[in-house]
């Protein structure tokens, strides 16, 4: 990142999905969260859900990845996640975000981002706030 960011900057949104059971299983294996509600169809239905619930940390992780694919992972200092709505296989989410603040110090820009994943109707399902420290030293 050689270019300085500005408040309000909003790169192109990204589509995630349609979500699949394979997405959830791959994430669960990687994370160590083996809750059956995310992959065991009879278990999920017995718990009152129409299908396995999406793993909240999977969609949140994908939203963070949208930001780190853009700014790189090295500068991440803070990540706060809030879930608003359950998701299910077949749903397609839109991942987007924008710069909400840039604080310049002598050596770096401290950049706040607000990110959101929305469902097909535009309703937010997960929100993420991140802070990056991006060096502004010579290239």
């Amino acid at each position, binding site marked *: 990142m050689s270019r300085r960011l500005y408040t309000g900057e909003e790169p192109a949104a990204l589509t*995630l999905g349609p979500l699949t059971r394979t997405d959830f299983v791959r994430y669960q294996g990687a*994370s160590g969260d083996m809750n059956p509600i995310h992959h065991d169809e009879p278990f999920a239905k017995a718990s009152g859900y129409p299908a396995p619930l999406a793993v*909240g940390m*999977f969609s949140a*992780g994908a939203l963070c990845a949208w930001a*780190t694919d853009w700014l790189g992972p*090295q500068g991440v200092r803070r*990540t706060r*996640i809030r879930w608003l709505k359950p998701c299910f296989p077949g749903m397609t989410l839109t991942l987007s975000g924008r710069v909400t603040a840039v604080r310049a110090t002598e050596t770096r820009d401290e950049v706040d981002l607000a990110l959101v994943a929305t469902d097909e109707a535009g309703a937010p399902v997960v929100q993420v706030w991140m802070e990056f420290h991006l060096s502004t030293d010579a290239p």
Partner: protein
Amino acid sequence: MINRSAIGAKGAPFDLWVERGKVMEFARAVRAEHPDHSTGLAPIAPPTFLTTQLFWEKLVEGGNPWALAGMSEERGMHAEQEYVFHGPPPRAGDRLIGQSTITEIWDKPSKNGVVLTFVKMVTTFHDADGRLVAEAILTGVERNPAPTEPAP
């Protein structure tokens, strides 16, 4: 029902080794495509990677005090999660020492007499020199109907 005396409960310390293959596997699972997650011997962990504490804390007796709060599996949900890095993010080759504490339990009234009970657990991660390098803050919520409401 949440056990309020769990406030202050501290888990046993556990090791979390940040491993190259696990970093690459985790990055792929969340569709993180930045080359820093897969390049060289010490790729950088994605922002939510410390959730893999779920694996490591189970290897130590008493590593996870969360169950002491007694949150219902049916009515409990992950409400919020936060990761703070007090410097560059963890990367492959790092050995972190985690320790979790239940720090807060509080109620918030919701619609139709429902009471939301929140439980917060903070996990600190220190390096081998005792420096605090990261924190993971988990907030769970349990929905409880008001006592007068008939069972569904």
